[in-house]
């Protein structure tokens, strides 16, 4: 006779409802709900942010995939792409003359079909004000950019001539969702329908026309299409896809994202520890039930299913509550961050919800599974012989399964198996160290407790400490478990608080009060000294003056740049426009060498008689000892000598450049070949002039150049600003106060978002304390009962318990501090890109705070025990 699943489901659900009265089930519920809340909150938020960024990228590109070539795309390719699941739209770009009456203007034509735009909307005025529409012009009409309409003196309803056709002006296009800049982007826009294209007869053999095929679909389709796209790239088709051309977040937001993931995982880990602690009590409490059911004929499988289902219901109920909390939490995060996010976020998706439920179930299986197996192994004979409890699950098995599951979650959430494995192994090593350390500590406590005075009036506290310490040390295994759980809890709470503090102070250091709020550009060489003199008395802080020369990269390793770089970098901005180049004797402030060596003076040339004494290091003319002679050679000789250059690390990575690679720059009519001699890491958010490429002195001085600098002026120093404008009319002063304020606002909002998450982690920590302390109550009740039988008063019991909890808190606080310090150092180096530092306050706050927190919570929770009659306390063990 076996139980049907339906009957088991009903039976288990009824059991759970009855069980809700038990403290361990409540602790399990709270812990699981918190795990789900933390993971869904962060999941919802990051998912929306990610999809928002992808959608923005798709919109800017015009589709998730954009193919471009000089001839129409064939039907076979279309079929392949459509069968893969992409919705396609055709577009043609070209430049053509457009006329109205006597006015002629070149226009940048964009020919679109009925599916345009695949993403976003077109801002167009069709005579009734600007509205956003999800289509392009209809056949027979054109939409003009207002500038083109102005130049042609065209109005809505006029008919403009385009090739052999005349088309009606149907609207003024203010903004297009996609901003792909082609060769015609300097000319004003004319948008028309594809059906009118043939009649214009504009596309002839040899016309400079660009055909684009845009596709929209789920981004993972692009993975399936990777081989096809690679082939197309080799065939000369320009391929842009949403994954590679995504806009990045600022470093502050990126770090915040990582912090949020980390905090979410910390909350999940804490919830896991709480689940493990509560499960032990849950299992102890259900051993009698399991034995009785075995006696009545339940099989091991039925017992597993019964208790498994009971906890499944609990996990599902906790998931619902947790998901609702998570949804509210992500709402709070968004309310803080929406204003500063440069995009519209899509509504929350379902994925984080499933991930949340999955997290709850994983935590349950991982942290409760091995302990739950005890219920299945219970012998029916226990009904006759109470002492026949099944052996507790091996501590190593519990740790191994929990670590495996947590490692999996780490992998899932960080997407980085290496990091997950590293953290996991590190965590396990730390756990072993803690285990050893905890054993030593407990042994020490026992020895110390034995030496405390046993009599005398002043022995009150000593007696409490002696008895409390002895009780703690006697229950060695249980105490060790609690010690580790509390240590891990304090560690996780401290880590999250610690990283938050360091993150904030790093952000503050990044934008100190004297962050430059003005940029001055176009300072001519002859104005340089006077400009510096004007600033030196007034500006609180200023960067060096950097000379600036504009040059274009025209070859990389003697090949055309597009051929020399990885396929995905072919459209890189650095290859499409002129770069600002500078020269410098020393490494600029805020830059860090990551490879190679900084420039050295040429030993072969004439040695400099004297070093330039200027701090800024720019040499205006005749920089002897540097590279002056190279320039004169390179202007005449095709075998120009290469000069060393320093390249920004990020650019080098994008273009696939390493030390020793050469870049040929065309500056005016001259060509200069630079050999990468060093790579630099720099902070683009620093509000200082930053350069992709730096030359040594002596190479660029002969070209036309101006200077740039950044400096800080207080409101009180506005007079200086007016003086600068008056004395240097050619210099452009840019005030970046508004941008600075925006960045500061961003940081303060991100800070608050981080604090929302911190609250969740703290709550998860408290849930561990609650779970562990309630789990230990029956044993403590038994001990209190015995002490009471032997004549201990309420006062002594209270003191003994207080002492026990305080010792536990103190020891776990110490261990938590050690763990936090070590882990923070590793994390800063590996993940958050911050410099490690020692946190002395941690060693004070955690042990003392731990003693206080555990002391108070434990004291409160055991208040009822002290009120119980000894008979009740002694009977309590294993019965409730």
């Amino acid at each position: 006779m076996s139980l049907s699943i339906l009957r088991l489901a009903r039976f288990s659900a009824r059991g759970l409802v009855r069980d809700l009265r038990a403290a361990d089930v409540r602790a399990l519920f709270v812990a699981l709900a918190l795990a789900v809340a933390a993971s869904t909150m962060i999941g919802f938020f990051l998912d929306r942010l990610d999809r928002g960024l992808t959608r923005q990228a798709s919109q800017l590109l015009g589709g998730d995939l954009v193919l471009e070539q000089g001839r129409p795309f064939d039907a076979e390719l279309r079929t392949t792409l459509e069968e893969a699941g992409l919705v396609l739209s055709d577009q043609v770009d070209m430049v053509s003359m457009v006329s109205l009456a006597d006015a002629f203007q070149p226009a940048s034509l964009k020919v679109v079909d009925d599916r345009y735009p695949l993403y976003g909307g077109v801002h167009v005025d069709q005579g009734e004000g600007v509205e956003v529409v999800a289509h392009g012009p209809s056949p027979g009409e054109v939409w003009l950019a207002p500038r083109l309409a102005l130049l042609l003196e065209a109005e809505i309803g006029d008919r403009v001539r385009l090739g052999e056709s005349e088309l009606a002006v149907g609207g003024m296009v203010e903004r297009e969702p996609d901003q792909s800049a082609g060769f015609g982007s300097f000319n004003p826009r004319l948008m028309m329908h594809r059906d009118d294209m043939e009649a214009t007869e504009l596309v002839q053999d040899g016309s400079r026309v660009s055909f684009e095929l845009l596709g929209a679909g789920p981004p993972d389709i692009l993975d399936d299409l990777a081989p096809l796209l690679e082939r197309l790239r080799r065939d000369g088709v320009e391929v842009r896809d949403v994954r590679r051309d995504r806009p990045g977040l600022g470093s502050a937001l990126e770090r915040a994202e990582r912090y949020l993931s980390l905090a979410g995982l910390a909350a999940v880990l804490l919830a896991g520890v709480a689940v493990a602690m509560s499960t032990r009590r849950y299992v102890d409490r259900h051993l009698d039930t399991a034995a009785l059911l075995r006696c009545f004929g339940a099989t091991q499988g039925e017992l597993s299913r019964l208790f498994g289902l009971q906890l499944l219901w609990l996990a599902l109920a906790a998931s619902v509550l947790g998901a609702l909390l998570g949804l509210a939490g992500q709402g709070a995060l968004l309310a803080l961050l929406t204003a500063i996010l440069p995009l519209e976020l899509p509504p929350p998706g379902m994925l984080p919800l499933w991930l949340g439920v999955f997290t709850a179930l994983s935590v349950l299986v991982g942290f409760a599974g091995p302990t739950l197996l005890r219920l299945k192994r219970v012998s029916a004979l226990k009904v006759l012989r109470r002492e026949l409890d099944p052996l507790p699950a091996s501590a190593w098995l519990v740790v191994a399964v929990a670590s495996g599951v947590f490692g999996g979650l780490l992998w899932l959430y960080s997407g980085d198996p290496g990091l997950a494995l590293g953290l996991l192994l590190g965590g396990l090593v730390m756990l072993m160290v803690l285990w050893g350390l905890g054993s030593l500590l407990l042994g020490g406590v026992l020895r110390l407790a034995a030496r405390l005075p046993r009599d005398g009036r002043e022995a009150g506290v000593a007696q409490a400490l002696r008895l409390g310490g002895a009780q703690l040390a006697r229950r060695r295994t249980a105490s060790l478990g609690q010690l580790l759980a509390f240590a891990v809890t304090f560690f996780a709470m401290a880590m999250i608080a610690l990283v938050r503090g360091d993150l904030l102070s790093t952000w503050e250091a990044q934008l100190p009060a004297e962050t430059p709020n003005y940029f001055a550009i176009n300072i001519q060489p002859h104005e340089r000294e006077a400009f510096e003199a004007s600033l030196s008395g007034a500006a609180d802080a200023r960067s060096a003056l950097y000379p600036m020369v504009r040059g274009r990269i025209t070859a990389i390793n003697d090949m055309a740049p597009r051929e020399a770089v990885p396929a995905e970098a072919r459209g890189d901005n650095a290859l499409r426009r002129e770069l600002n180049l500078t020269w410098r004797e020393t490494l600029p402030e805020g830059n860090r060498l990551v490879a190679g060596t900084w420039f050295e003076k040429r030993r072969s040339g004439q040695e400099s008689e004297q070093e330039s004494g200027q701090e800024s290091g720019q040499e205006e003319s005749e920089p002897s000892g540097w590279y002056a002679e190279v320039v004169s050679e390179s202007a005449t000789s095709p075998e120009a000598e290469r000069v060393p250059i320093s390249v920004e690390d990020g650019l080098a990575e994008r273009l696939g450049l390493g030390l020793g690679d050469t870049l040929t720059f065309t500056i005016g009519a001259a060509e200069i070949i630079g050999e990468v001699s060093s790579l630099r890491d720099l902070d683009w958010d620093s509000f200082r002039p930053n350069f992709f490429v730096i030359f040594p002195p002596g190479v660029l001085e002969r070209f036309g150049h101006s200077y740039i600098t950044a400096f800080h002026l207080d409101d009180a120093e506005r007079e200086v600003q007016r003086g600068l404008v008056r004395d240097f009319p050619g210099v452009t002063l840019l005030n970046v106060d508004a941008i600075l304020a925006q960045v500061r606002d961003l940081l303060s909002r991100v800070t608050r978002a981080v604090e929302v998450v911190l609250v969740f982690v703290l709550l998860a920590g408290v849930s561990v304390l609650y779970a562990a302390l309630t789990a230990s109550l029956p044993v403590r009740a038994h001990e209190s009962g015995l002490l009471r039988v032997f004549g201990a008063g309420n006062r002594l019991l209270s003191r003994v318990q207080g002492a026990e909890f305080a010792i536990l808190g103190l020891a776990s606080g110490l261990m938590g501090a050690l763990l936090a310090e070590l882990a923070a150092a590793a994390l800063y180096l590996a993940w958050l890109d911050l410099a490690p530092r020692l946190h002395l306050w941690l060693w004070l706050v955690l042990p003392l705070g731990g003693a206080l927190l555990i002391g108070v919570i434990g004291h409160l929770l055991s208040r009822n025990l002290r009120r119980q009659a000894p008979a009740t306390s002694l009977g309590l063990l294993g019965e409730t």
Partner: protein
Amino acid sequence: MTPILHAEHLIKQVRSGERQLTILSDLALSVFPGETVAILGQSGAGKSTLLGLLAGLDLPTGGELMMFGQRLADLGEDGRARLRAGRVGFVFQNFQLLPTLTALENVLLPLELSPRGDSEQRAREWLARVGLGERLDHLPKQLSGGEQQRVALARAFVTGAELVFADEPTGNLDTETGERIIDALFSLNREAGTTLVLVTHDHALARRCDRCLRLGHGRLEEMALDEVGA
């Protein structure tokens, strides 16, 4: 008639440190359907061990043991559990009621494992028969010891068990309450036509059974009822 319980050459040994202790040696027993059998013995004689073996809660070290015509040695833990489901009832010295379940829920517990359509109705009826029809929703801690044991009696008979094992059913009760419980046990047993095997050191209780067996030195010996003193 086939015995409902049959044991031959039953041996139970346990290891205590280096020593092997023999609790039961070469024990034989047959219990036939409808019989009431008392097993008497001193504390530590191995009564509970024998009960555990007879009910299939534990396995003997040697010998043959059959329940409902099935060799228990041929069945695994789960097989023996299935054999018990719905056919075997238990009454324990310490009642073994689950503290978080009401009286009704405690009686319903074995019915959850041997489902029938009218489970709840049956449970209510059995509780009414033991005089607790008004205390259905009370938790064990709200009931006296005697009332708790009556709940346990209802639970033992509610599935229509063919065989009920009772382990010192009055051990935790005062004399007067104990007698009332025994009255109830034998009356229910009679009404249901169940086979009852009880272990006790209470001679008065043993005398009410059809047969009495004494467990001593690991063996069982039949006692005449008039041998069973007060």
